[in-house]
């Protein structure tokens, strides 16, 4: 085991995969500058700068995947999938079914996501629930370096379209580029264990659709993803001082969900809080409630999500995104019901 940053882990896994499989290409806006080390090793035939034209180059990545390449296409920020939605919604997601299972598009769509650095609601969304809503898309959201590398490898090896979302508070180079910009006059609440952590010497895929228990607990289960996992762990520690035993599950893959791990945990505690940085209405938090109900589990339920458009103002942004205090408050309410 060695310790590595979240960003280096993704790059390490990509480098390992690209060295073994010449069909893997990376394309996207500014990628030659963004992926300088990969460019230095694999050259500009495999790291392709695109124009700012997401609908064209994501659409092309999907069909390139259909025709034999294994593209990792970068849509800088997940917010910009708005520009490219047709390629994902009506094409990548439909191919497998429409072809009767005879044709697949092994494309990875990589994008930065998430807020907490004051860029405003057009560049800080999470949107994993929005994308996971579409049958045919796999959506992964790693919360630490080991998963960041392992899930990237799994995404590349998977034979269908995978949306791979890296949170900007975890990827140091993203936070530097769009947050600090060389300044040391700005601060962010970066979860240390998400940004740096132990990774394997040789990358192996982390299985898709497999949640992981980050902390055991008997009284309450918190289910979360991405940066929310770290906020939840912090909340669990605070609640422990009040005498509550709180477990935390990191779902890692938003679609498809690992229903078994989730229902098992919740059936034991009977209390569930979902912490989701994505929008509250019609999303992951409601989906998890439905899964628990469908499994016939009696549960006290609460959720801490993003309700509204994320404000630019740092103060208002802090109140809008899930934070540790909001999680503790909601957990106490659910526990004391």
């Amino acid at each position, binding site marked *: 085991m060695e310790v590595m940053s979240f960003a280096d882990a993704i790059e390490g896994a990509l480098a390992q995969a690209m060295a073994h499989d010449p069909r893997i290409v990376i394309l996207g806006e500014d990628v030659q500058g963004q992926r300088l080390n990969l460019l230095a090793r694999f050259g500009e035939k495999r790291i392709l700068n695109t124009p700012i034209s997401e609908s064209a180059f994501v659409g092309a990545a999907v069909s390139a995947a259909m025709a034999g390449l294994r593209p990792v296409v970068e849509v800088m920020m997940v917010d910009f999938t708005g*520009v490219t939605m047709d390629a994902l919604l009506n094409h990548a997601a439909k191919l497998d079914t429409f072809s009767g299972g005879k044709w697949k598009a092994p494309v990875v769509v990589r994008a930065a996501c998430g807020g907490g650095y004051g860029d405003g609601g057009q560049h800080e969304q999470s949107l994993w629930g929005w994308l996971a809503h579409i049958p045919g898309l796999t959506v992964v959201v790693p919360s630490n370096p080991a998963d960041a590398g392992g899930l990237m490898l799994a995404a590349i090896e998977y034979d269908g379209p995978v949306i791979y979302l890296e949170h900007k508070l975890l990827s140091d180079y993203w936070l530097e580029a769009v947050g600090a910009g060389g300044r040391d006059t700005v601060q962010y609440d970066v979860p240390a264990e998400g940004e740096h952590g132990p990774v394997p010497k040789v990358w192996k895929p982390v299985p898709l659709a497999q949640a992981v228990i980050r902390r055991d607990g008997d009284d309450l289960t918190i289910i979360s993803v991405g940066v929310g996992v770290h906020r939840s762990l912090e909340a669990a520690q605070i609640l422990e001082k009040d005498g509550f035993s709180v477990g935390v599950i990191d779902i890692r893959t938003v679609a498809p969900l690992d229903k078994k791990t989730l229902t098992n945990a919740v059936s034991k505690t009977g209390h569930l809080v979902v912490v989701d940085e994505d929008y509250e209405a019609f999303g992951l938090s409601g989906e998890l409630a439905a899964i628990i109900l469908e499994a016939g589990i009696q549960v006290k339920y609460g959720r801490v999500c993003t309700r509204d458009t994320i404000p630019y103002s740092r103060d208002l942004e802090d109140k809008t995104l899930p934070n540790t205090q909001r999680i503790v408050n909601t957990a106490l309410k659910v526990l004391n019901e």
Partner: protein
Amino acid sequence: MKIDLWSLYRQMFRSRFFEEAVIQLWEVGLISGEMHLGIGEEAIVAGIVDQMIAGDAMALDHRGTPPLLMREINPVLLLKEFLGLQDGLCSGMGGHMHLFSKDHLAASSGIVGASGPTAVGFALAGIHLRPGTLAVAFFGEGAINQGMMMEAMNLASVWKLPVIFVCKNNEWAISTSSPSVTGGNLMDRAFGFGMAAIEVEGSDVQAIWESSSEAFERARDGSGPTFLLTRCSHPEGHYLGDPLLRMSRQPVKEFSKRAGPLFRSVISRKGATIRDRMKSLGDVMSVGKEIAEQVSATEDPLALTRRGLVTDIERLNMLEEEVAGEILDAVELALNTD
């Protein structure tokens, strides 16, 4: 409408002085996130905005500060917005990339290319509700490869809408050389949509004003849209703290952070040939240098305009002092009312 270089210079100087104050506020951490400036674009924006009248609309990109200032939006409201205060232009909710003023029919977007369709819709509403008015779309040449921009140009053309598409060409699409990702020639592209097109030097406010006045006439008399191709450069790069510019300004410091992993990548087994690796790397590493060279080769639009006015140095000094006073007062007011 007659050209008044004094008033144009005043607006350009105001915008520059204001954005230099914004740099200071950003550096000390009072402004969060990214900061895209319009420094280098002042002549283009001033030449266009000066000819706008009440009821005209503006669709802005992520560099919306200069057009809004020149459209006489209160600078205190803009500053308070950037500071994230509740009495800012958009109540601290939007920030510099998402500035809106309903009264001025001005809307911005951080999504590259979005100003195209927005201007088309503004123009459509204009011909129904405010005959004789028009809509301006400001965007960079990086936006011209977006489907939505080309679709908007087509729509404006077939509907003969009063739109002026103002393309501010600095030849960099974020940090990628635009010619390397743009097919053909932009003027031909506009002609391909059946649209009138004008190419003009973007540092020269007089040239911008005079050559665009026919676009304003065409729009106002119902003869359809115009594509205005202008050239400019961004001394601060794509945004403040642009890593590629930092690389060229402080090569030793910045490069030493990257050198280890880079070196390992170049010598790792399995990959491209060494010749390909070195070529790819050289191309990217020179981007910051190329931007810096382009900036120094481009005439500063303010310096160019100022030269024409320097014969009346007294009036010029007075104007600059007055503008500086206005902006400094605005900064003071924005920082000290809470």
